[in-house]
Structure formats: structure tokens, C-alpha cells
């Protein structure tokens, strides 16, 4: 259960961005999470909600782009979305494949309120 700490890291970055933009209110933050990252999306959302509640960030939405494991075959170079546990190449049947994606834990974007028109 380290999702609370990860939620806190995301919020710190959001606050930093908001401060750099004259305190513009943050509306939404997007993260990319791979299934191999060791981060559970539900636990992250839960921790995130708990941390923003009753703070100036309350209402900030968390968008999660959940990614599957991707493999590349060392024999035929095919790249494919793989199940977590069955990594054999669907093209040539080789077992020699390498994981190329699926362990992401990235901050993609922060959406902030547009500055008021003067």
C-alpha cells in the first residue's frame, strides 16, 4: 500500500504547476499506469480522493490511462500486447521475448482553469 505516497507525489507536482501559473486552479491531472508498475489504480484513486478532501484541491479529477504489458519478440521483432503471464510470441511462437512497456508510472498532463478574461 504505497499508493497514498504516490498520490501525494502527484498532488505535490500539481501544486507546483499551479503555483508557477499564478495559482491557477487545477481541474484534472492525468497519469499513465502500467499493469506491471506495482500500483493499483483503485487504491491510487482512493488515496487521491482522501488527500484532496477538504483542501483547496477538492474536486480535482484524476484520469488514469491503464496500460497492458507489451512484449517484443527477439526472433521476429513483432511487438504485441501480452497477457501478464503468457508472453510467447503470437507470430512465431518464440519464448525469447522482452518486455518493452507496461511498467509506466508517468504524469501525463495537468489541466488548469483558464485565466479569467480581463
Amino acid at each position: 500500500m504505497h499508493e497514498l505516497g504516490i498520490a501525494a507525489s502527484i498532488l505535490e507536482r500539481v501544486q507546483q504547476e499551479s503555483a508557477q501559473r499564478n495559482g491557477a486552479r487545477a481541474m484534472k491531472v492525468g497519469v499513465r499506469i502500467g499493469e506491471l508498475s506495482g500500483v493499483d489504480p483503485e487504491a491510487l484513486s482512493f488515496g487521491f480522493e482522501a488527500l484532496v478532501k477538504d483542501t483547496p484541491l477538492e474536486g480535482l479529477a484524476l484520469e488514469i490511462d491503464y496500460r497492458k504489458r507489451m512484449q517484443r519478440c527477439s526472433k521476429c521483432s513483432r511487438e504485441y500486447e501480452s497477457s501478464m503471464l503468457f508472453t510467447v510470441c503470437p507470430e512465431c511462437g518464440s519464448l525469447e521475448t522482452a518486455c518493452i512497456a507496461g511498467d509506466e508510472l508517468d504524469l501525463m498532463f495537468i489541466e488548469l482553469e483558464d485565466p479569467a478574461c480581463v
Partner: protein
Amino acid sequence: MRVAVEEKVLNENQRLALELRQRFHDHNVFCLNLISAPGSGKTSLLERTLEAMVRDAKVAVLTGDIQTENDARRLAGAGFPVKQITTGGTCHLDAKMITKALADWDLDKIEILFIENVGNLVCPSSYDLGEHAKVVLLSVTEGEDKPLKYPGIFLKSELCVINKTELLPYVPFDLAAARENARKVHPGIDIVETSCTARRGLDEWLAWIYRRQQKAIGAPAL
């Protein structure tokens, strides 16, 4: 207004981990990060490992736990530098804790640094500590399906140590299935089988360490 950020959520950890990796490189320190469930035998394996080292070997251990200095006490018996990191509740070690723990150690006096992570197969897998390789332990009193249940850490580890093999006659652990499961998740993973009480497989484990150390220390800069 949408601001594209595109950076690691654990950016600060990543920055510190890269700093550690550079320091390890500059001082020729080979670093392994040992990860397992609680009770798989990380400390026992390190006890046997330190015993096997020659007296003037430059080996050191950082050992993480939520509470108590028990592991550091156990490991200090071999006479090498050992430091306990008590996380006070945190379920993993992060790069900041390692940086802090190393602050008063002279890295030129260390050639192999073992980091014993907090017993946990999930959270430690998200935190780079600047190590050269992660090693995952699995003991035969656990299920042979552990690699399937916790694929993340088996994928990120270069070596899987199957420990407590002296208990194989007494437990329904299917060794062949365990090996197959680890390779299903991570086809390139190395596997060694050890028994810390019957002292079997330790030569193979040490040979793996020295091979990997050679590969790391001969390696070009980042």
C-alpha cells in the same frame, strides 16, 4: 488549459536513484537490491553470504525494516559494516533513504553493497534505489505460483533465488513449476536454488554475484 507534463510520477526518487547510480559507478560499488515477501530468508541468505566473504572483503549491507534493529544485529556478527534503516511504517525503501543511510559511509571502502528491502513483493518494485540489479527471493514454504501472483517484481529482477530447499521433502512445493512460472513472467531471469541451513547452492549464488559484479564494474559510464 492543458499542460503536457510527461515525466515520472516518482521523478524525485528517480533523480536520487540516478545520482546514487552515478556515485556507485564513480566509486566502483556493485549494488544489489534484495526483495522478497517477509520470511523468505533475505537476512539468512545475507548471513551466509557475509560468512563466505574473506575477512578483508569490502562488503556492506543496508537492511530495511518497518521496525526493530534485529536484522542489523544478526548481520553485524560477520564484522562488515551494516546499517539498519527503519522506515517506521513505510512498506518499501526509497532512494532518499539510501542516500541518507550512505551519507557517513566512505564508498571507496565498499565494493559490494547489499540492500535488503522491506519484506514486500509489491511496493519495492516501484522504487529504483540506483542498484545494478534486483534479486527476488522465493522460499519453498510459499506457493510456486508466486511469480504469477506478483509478476512485476519477477519481471524487474535479474535473479530469482529459490530458498529453503532443505524443506522440499516436507512441503508440497513444485520446484519445476516454480521455475517455469518465473520464466513465464520473465523469460530471461536467472534462477539459483539455495538452502541457508543445509548450506546448499550458496556457491552458485556467490558465483552469480561475482559474474554480475564483473559485468557491472566493467560497464561504461551512464
